[in-house]
């Protein structure tokens, strides 16, 4: 028997085998200790190579800015800065790490990372629920292997079974999913082997097909009534589609069913730090604990499932009862509509098996690169023999500890931010590129990183106090022009072909989308994650047929623009003028429906549309970015000083203190005190402006636009 199997249907079997004694305390693992060992291993591995330049440790405030950006996805506020500075110098960094690790925004920030990794798309089938699901998994710190298993093995209805979003993302296509699973979870680009043996690696086409066979019965089903899609399901067929030899090779000859086989090696030997034994101990403890809890609550053993078990909040992903019930529903009520996939369950077990080193290494490498600006293996999803890791021992140590922690994602992040390596600065711009690169490869200096779009957006919002209105109500009355499509029924007159349409060219049978007006490119739909995750009962299937055939028909006719009595629906564009109190307020970009629409701030700053596997954030600057920063509503409103924000008292009125105001703004935007020279310069700016308030806005605008603001210190 494989060492560690804990999925739902196996829970029973596993429990029967394990007569493990209930443990009194869970095995613990300390990220601080792990971090120290990582530092030691890194310098040990570096000592074998020529010495590289060392960057200095970053200053306290630079560290705070970096840490806040990495753990909360934004710059720190003045309050956070003051709290940090009030702590004793020798412990303030550790305290800040502890605080920001526990901060709610941790989930927002890392949902962006997972959103890219898992290609979460709000508009895909069940995308909204999937986005909320991923966010919730991070919030509750669902073990990474548990999450992975749920994503790979999911079956059910899009939205209702939120995790089906992952497989449905690629229309449940077996070939696509094969490439996705190996690249996303194992950092290996096997998809080249779909059409030919991999050019620079050992993967063969046959191995690709064997892996694909796990998805051979996976099927996306549309439940339709009268052309209307009422539900999308992820189902399991009885026959596989994966046959060998491939169609292009078979040339009419008979093809045989490919037997599913996991091509990645499972390493049976335990590591030097006994990670396999340790995760077994941890999981044994968790299973025993879950069993005890179930006994106490009187639930049946059916309700036992894998996973953390530390938290039992309702709605928690590792909540035993809910998942077990969902699993039962799947079998009993909806068995016909979607069958659970035994093949994908097996695959999920293989992928997340602690002995599958590719799985743990890949995640560790990704998180390391996210925080350090460079991975041990680059690009992060290109593990292969001739692209070896720069520090194999360090990578393996961290990967093993990640396994031993029970794939605890927060443990992994904390272990990295607590290294002294993470506190290294960048080499100054004067150092020649080859030397800088050598140091960055050795992690004796860290590469400069730009904030990603979400962090930049939220940082501007924080610096400009835009999460809440900063102007009194009624002080921003503006006339807003908007365009809307209005449906008008018109009599058809076929005797007069070419009679003039009444309003421009808008007489199309489908309502054209209203084009985003003026500054909409910086707005976003905030997602109510709780609502998106609200599970409907298993009986929802019945509700889908609630609409009568006539109603559906009528709806269709409305949609096609054809009305019964010889009339047609035309859409005309109406211009609307409204006067609104445009008191600027922005929500966090990390909770927006993602990916944002094309042209949106986030997209301009590198967010991809997460459609294909090769898309990655483009961090190159562009003219469009510059235009957005120079003229956009976000930066300009962030710069404008509001009478309800703290700095206002320092710049206006009897108690005005220009020096203090300038320093305050520097701290709020740049997380540092200005130099004397900068204060003098700023004073001149304030003097030149029409009013000191305007001058302060000009200063803040320039700081937000500056290079220093964009780059993570």
């Amino acid at each position, binding site marked *: 028997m494989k060492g560690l199997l804990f999925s739902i249907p196996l829970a029973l079997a596993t429990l029967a085998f394990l007569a493990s004694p209930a443990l009194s305390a869970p095995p613990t693992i300390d990220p601080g200790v792990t971090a120290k060992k990582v530092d030691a291993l890194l310098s040990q591995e570096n000592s074998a190579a020529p010495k590289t330049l060392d960057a200095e440790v970053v200053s306290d405030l630079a560290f705070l800015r970096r840490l806040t950006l990495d753990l909360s996805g934004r710059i720190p506020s003045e309050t956070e800065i003051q709290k940090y500075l009030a702590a004793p110098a020798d412990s303030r960094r550790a305290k800040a790490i502890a605080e920001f690790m526990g901060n709610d925004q941790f989930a927002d920030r890392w949902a962006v990372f997972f959103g890219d990794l898992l290609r979460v798309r709000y508009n895909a089938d069940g995308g909204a629920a999937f986005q909320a699901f991923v966010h919730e998994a991070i919030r509750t710190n669902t073990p990474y292997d548990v999450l992975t298993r749920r994503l790979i093995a999911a079956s059910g209805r899009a939205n209702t079974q939120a995790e089906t979003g992952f497989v449905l993302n690629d229309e449940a*296509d077996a070939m*696509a999913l094969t*490439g*996705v699973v190996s690249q996303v979870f194992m950092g290996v680009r096997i998809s080249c082997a779909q059409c030919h043996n991999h050019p620079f690696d050992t993967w063969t086409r046959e191995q690709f097909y064997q892996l694909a066979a796990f998805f051979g019965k996976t099927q996306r089903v549309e439940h339709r009534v009268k052309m209307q899609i009422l539900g999308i399901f992820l189902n399991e067929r009885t026959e596989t589609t994966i046959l060998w030899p491939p169609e292009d090779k078979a040339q009419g000859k008979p093809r045989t069913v490919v037997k599913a086989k996991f091509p990645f090696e499972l390493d049976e030997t335990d590591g030097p730090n006994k990670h396999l034994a340790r995760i077994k101990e941890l999981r044994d403890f968790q299973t025993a604990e879950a069993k005890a809890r179930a006994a106490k609550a009187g639930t049946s053993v059916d309700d036992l499932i894998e996973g953390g078990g530390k938290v039992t909040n309702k709605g928690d992903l590792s909540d035993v009862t809910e998942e077990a019930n969902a699993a039962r529903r799947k079998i009993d009520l909806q068995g016909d509509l979607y069958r659970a996939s035994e093949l994908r369950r097996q695959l999920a077990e293989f992928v997340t098996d602690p002995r599958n080193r590719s799985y743990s290494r890949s995640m560790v490498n990704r998180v390391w690169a996210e925080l350090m600006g*460079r*991975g041990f293996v680059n*690009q992060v999803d*290109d593990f292969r023999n001739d692209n070896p890791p720069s520090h194999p021992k360090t990578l393996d140590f961290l990967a093993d500890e990640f396994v031993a922690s029970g794939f605890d994602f927060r443990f992994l992040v904390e272990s990295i931010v607590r290294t002294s390596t993470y506190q290294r600065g960048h080499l*100054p*711009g*004067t150092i020649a*590129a*080859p030397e800088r*690169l050598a140091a960055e490869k050795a992690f004796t200096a860290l590469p*400069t990183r730009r904030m990603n779009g979400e962090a930049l957006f939220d940082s501007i919002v924080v610096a400009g106090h835009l999460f809440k209105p900063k102007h009194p109500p009624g002080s921003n009355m503006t006339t807003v022009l908007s365009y809307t499509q209005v449906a008008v029924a018109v009599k058809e007159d*076929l005797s007069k072909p*070419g009679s003039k*349409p009444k309003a*421009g*060219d808008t007489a*199309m*049978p*489908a309502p*054209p989308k209203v*084009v*985003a*007006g003026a500054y909409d*490119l910086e707005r976003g739909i905030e997602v109510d994650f709780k609502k998106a995750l609200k599970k409907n009962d298993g009986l929802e299937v019945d509700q889908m047929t609630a609409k009568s055939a006539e109603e559906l028909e009528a709806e269709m006719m409305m949609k*096609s*623009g*054809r009305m019964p009595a010889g009339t047609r629906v035309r859409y005309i564009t109406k211009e609307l003028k409204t006067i609104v109190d445009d008191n600027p307020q922005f929500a966090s970009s990390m909770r927006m429906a993602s990916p944002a629409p094309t*042209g949106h701030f986030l997209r*301009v700053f590198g967010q991809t549309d997460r*459609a*294909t*596997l*090769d*898309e990655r954030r*483009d*961090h*190159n*600057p*562009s*003219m*469009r970015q*510059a*235009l957005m920063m*120079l*003229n*956009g509503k976000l930066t*300009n409103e962030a710069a404008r000083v509001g009478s309800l924000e703290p700095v206002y008292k320092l710049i206006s009125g009897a108690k005005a203190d220009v020096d203090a105001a300038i320093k305050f703004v520097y701290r709020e935007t740049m997380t540092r005190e200005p130099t004397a020279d900068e204060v003098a310069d700023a004073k001149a700016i304030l003097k*030149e*402006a029409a009013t000191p308030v305007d001058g302060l806005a*000009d200063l803040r*605008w*320039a700081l937000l636009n*500056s*290079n*220093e603001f*964009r780059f993570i210190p």
Partner: protein
Amino acid sequence: MLSESNGCRGYRVSRRGFVGAAAGTFLGMNIRSLVARAGEDRKATAEHVILFWNGGGMSHIDTFDPKPGRDVQGDLEPIKTSVAGIQISEIFPELAKQMKHIALIRSIAGTNGDHGRATYQLQTSYGQSSNLQHPGVGSVVVSERKTLGDLPAYVTVGGLAPKAGYLGQSCEAYFVGRPGEKDPYLAFPSAIGDVRGSKRLDILKRINEKQAGTLPTTETAGTQTALNDAVRLMRSPALEAFEVRKEKPEVLERYGDSEFGRSALLARRLVEKGVRFVQVNRGGFDVHSNAFPAMRDHGEVMDPALAALIEDLAQSGLLKKTMIVMLSEFGRTPKINLTTGRDHWPSVFSCMFAGGGVKGGQVIGSSDEDGMKPKDRPVKVSHLHASICSALGIDHEKEVMTPLQRPMKLVDNGKRIDELFS
């Protein structure tokens, strides 16, 4: 005289290029190492492209490939054009007069009847894949040809253009929502104005200079280039091109008082200022029911605009170097369905070319008697792309590297349609 600046790759951070060259790969960057290829570049016959994208699948029979006397013809009659022997649909009376500039292709052999996949293929030449985002033809053009003048090299009007994929975001189209709508991002907010805005730029310059030295110039150079280009654009007199309403009323009238008319006019004005590639998007061709009144409506909107555009460009001489293309993702079923509509039909459909070296007054290829299949000279989708590239002097077989270091041809195995050109 238009000044030449870098193509859309000018923002590439050189250090990344260096790292890429040294290490072969680099985290998440678009490194483009070009694979040299034997074969000569053809001389360009076109400098600009205006692509009309008709989303939804435009009926070939009801536009450029009428089947007079057949049951499939439906309500719309064919009409004569200014070129003897060529007939098009009655919905294009003005366009018919410009036939001497126009080449029609009636034998595109598509392979995809799904909107998404077919659109992807018609716009990129490649089949959709979950591994790779292929660039649209506009991105290919601006990645290979230098930017002319101050305006963005690639502009899309009234809808989104395909993505630039592995060519990188700087080769993506500049989006204009509605023709004539002032893009608020091209000027300081009105509350700030030019004077204060310029002052702000001076302050920004000082602050960035003070910070210099802490960041590698290789990192900041790209940002500076982007900033300079943005300011240059904001101050450029060429921006006037966007203000379509400055045209005389009679000109506006000729193009038709419609969004599409103004889009065509905007396209002309943009090309006059040096814009390489303009894509004008319009939907509503997915006429599953009641197809004929809908196509008449389309004609009313498109006919004056297209005709006026060709006429104006011909008169100013710009038609010689401006290629006009009108594409849709597929045609529609010759058989008229029970709701007097037509459904998706990729097996054969038509498109229109004019200008930029195109030999007008001709029809290339044909469909069979009912417009079901290509009869002669079947044209692959990628041949269209190869022909557009070729007109611009771009070697469509040139290979570029994707971020995953996979060499990809600019066009998916297309061949130039030689007879399209004079």
